[in-house]
């Protein structure tokens, strides 16, 4: 579904991603792990089309199409969803209204009928239960006055309503207590289907106890330095990122010799 080849990305005057290779199939859950500043959030944001980054080299194919040539809203309408690390507040705009506008934009794009208020509400109520969300969040302005946990839950709730084909979770676990983490993870796990791919970006292994990945990639300094099964996350938890960095230095030294 998603094939990233030799992706180089600049942000400001710095090269953040330095040749990423990644391939994700439908039905798979991949985790991207890495220390702070390794570029994992940049990767998520570039895939979503954030305008502050410049792709200098490489390609990203999504269902065989050039993802980088699409603007952010086209990607969203084609089924790419990103749960934000820092969800943005939109004062005065009702959460339900916002989500209905988004859902209907997607439906229009797919040639489906727009949902009216009644149909929308019955869909939304079902999805809210999935995340044990309080219904009052619907009538409050988008993310305004939400606690950190509520914001993250709201992201996953939006994902449940918008039903993306490729879901990118950017540090969804940060700022969540263990109970909230379990609820969010259960919501994501419930959305694992053979048609959907999920990319989980996280700093800690903790989340992966609840969203068990098929593949784990470790990102260091803008490159994938190791990929493996779910055991890799546990190994990292035990040995820390320093273990891989040392490894990488050794590999680089060997290459030179």
């Amino acid at each position: 579904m998603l094939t990233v080849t030799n992706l180089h990305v600049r942000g400001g005057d710095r090269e953040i991603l330095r040749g990423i290779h990644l391939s994700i199939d439908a039905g798979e859950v991949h985790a991207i792990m890495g220390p702070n500043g390794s570029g994992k959030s940049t990767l998520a944001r570039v895939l979503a089309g954030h305008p502050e980054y410049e792709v200098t080299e490489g390609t990203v194919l999504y269902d065989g199409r050039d993802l980088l040539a699409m603007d952010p809203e086209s990607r969203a309408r084609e089924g790419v969803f990103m749960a934000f690390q820092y969800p943005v507040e939109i004062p005065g705009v009702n959460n339900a209204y916002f989500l209905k506008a988004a859902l209907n934009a997607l439906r229009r794009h797919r040639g489906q009928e727009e949902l009216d208020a009644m149909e929308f509400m019955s869909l939304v109520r079902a999805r809210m239960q999935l995340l044990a969300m309080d219904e009052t969040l619907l009538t409050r302005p988008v993310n305004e006055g939400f606690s950190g946990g509520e914001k993250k839950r709201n992201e996953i709730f939006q994902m449940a309503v918008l039903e993306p084909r490729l879901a990118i979770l950017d540090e969804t676990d940060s700022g969540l207590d263990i109970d909230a983490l379990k609820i969010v993870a259960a919501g994501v796990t419930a959305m694992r289907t053979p048609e959907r791919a999920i990319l989980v970006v996280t700093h800690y292994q903790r989340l992966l106890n609840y969203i068990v990945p098929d593949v784990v990639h470790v990102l260091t300094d803008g490159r994938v330095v190791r990929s493996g099964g779910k055991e890799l996350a546990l190994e990292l938890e035990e040995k820390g990122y320093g273990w891989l960095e040392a490894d990488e230095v050794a590999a680089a030294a060997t290459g030179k010799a």
Partner: protein
Amino acid sequence: MSTSTQTIEELANREYRYGFVTDVEQDSAPRGLNEDIVRLISAKKHEPAWLLEWRLKAYRTWLTMKEPTWANIKYGPIDYQDVIYYAAPKKKPALRSLDEVDPEVRRTFEKLGIPLHEQKLLSGVAVDAVFDSVSVATTFKEKLGELGIIFCSFSEAVQNHPELVRKYLGSVVPYSDNFFATLNSAVFSDGSFAYIPKDVRCPMELSTYFRINAKDTGQFERTLIVAEEGAYVSYLEGCTAPMRDENQLHAAVVELIALDNATIKYSTVQNWYPGDKEGKGGIYNFVTKRGKCLGVDSKITWTQVETGSAITWKYPGCILQGDNSVGEFYSVATTNNYQQADTGTKMIHLGRNTKSTIVSKGISAGHGQNTYRGLVKIAKQARGARNYSQCDSLLIGDRCGAHTFPYLEIKNTTAKVEHEASTSKIGEDQIFYCRQRGLSTEDAVNLIVSGFCREVFRQLPMEFAVEAQKLLSVTLEGSVG
């Protein structure tokens, strides 16, 4: 900057939709202003001697006055001798029925979406349509008449209800009030008049629609609304003008009077031609609007959505004279391209336990300059007065400006006055968030702006709120930077 900036810039070039000119034969006064012109206007309207006297006093006072310069607006000198002070469609609309309206004029209002045929009106809004200087049609007159409500053009009111006009004209905005109001007092040509008798709740929205059509013509209308004890009325005002390269002057006066327990809601959606993208042309909108809460427990609410005009100079205020009276001001003012707005309110607390609320939302885009200027005055005798003011500014791009000038004059120690202000920018992050959910940049900006204006829009009657929101999105198209 980023790609989203470019996309938004591209959206900018939508044209003013109401900029067409109607071809009708005009009966106009010669250019310029002198006592003869004042007399001519008065004679055209068959006015009683007292009204001519009042106009002449105003004119003589105006000659001694200077155009104010304190506002935060810049414009070239206005040549008051180069303005035509009276213009009217030639077929004199001494109308027995609406069918007698000049078909060209009627078509104009139809084009603007203002139906003058009562049978076509479904929304329950009675309309007084003012074309250049004269009122051409007032709908639902008879139905309202059954309740004792008078809703007609100002000229008709002078003929048919002179005692009411004489009693209240100038009682809130005296003829000597300020340069533009005084000019209006000398040369006003028409406008609307509404009178709601005791304990009557007006069953439909009353509405005036103003259209400037003739070239080089100033529009000077005058509106007077009186709500007797226990009466209620909601009044709407809308306006448009053709696109012209020259600036056109609009200097209106609105006076509201609320007696004991009466409520007046006055809502405006101002959409005069704003000039082109380089700032050429557009209406100079110098307007004096004031309401007097004369009776106890009376209430006046001003709601304005200002999207048009090259210059807006406007401070709808309330004189809170009756004890426990309430004044409210809800405003959205938008400036894009080279538009300038200096607008706000005056809340004058005279009575005891009077209360006022001010919610002002200024949106600046392009090179627009947006100033909030508001006065809260608590007089010595006004025990227990309260005011809450909130002024928020939203900036779109980095070439526009937002300014806030709150004036507070508190002479009574029991007063409670609160003022909150904020300035924010539409962030790239907000826009990206919306786009990531599938919304276009344009929809994202509209969504963010409508959220920003929500407190004001909810004060408007339903259909008007929808219209206001649409207008705002047209005004702001192509503006995010």
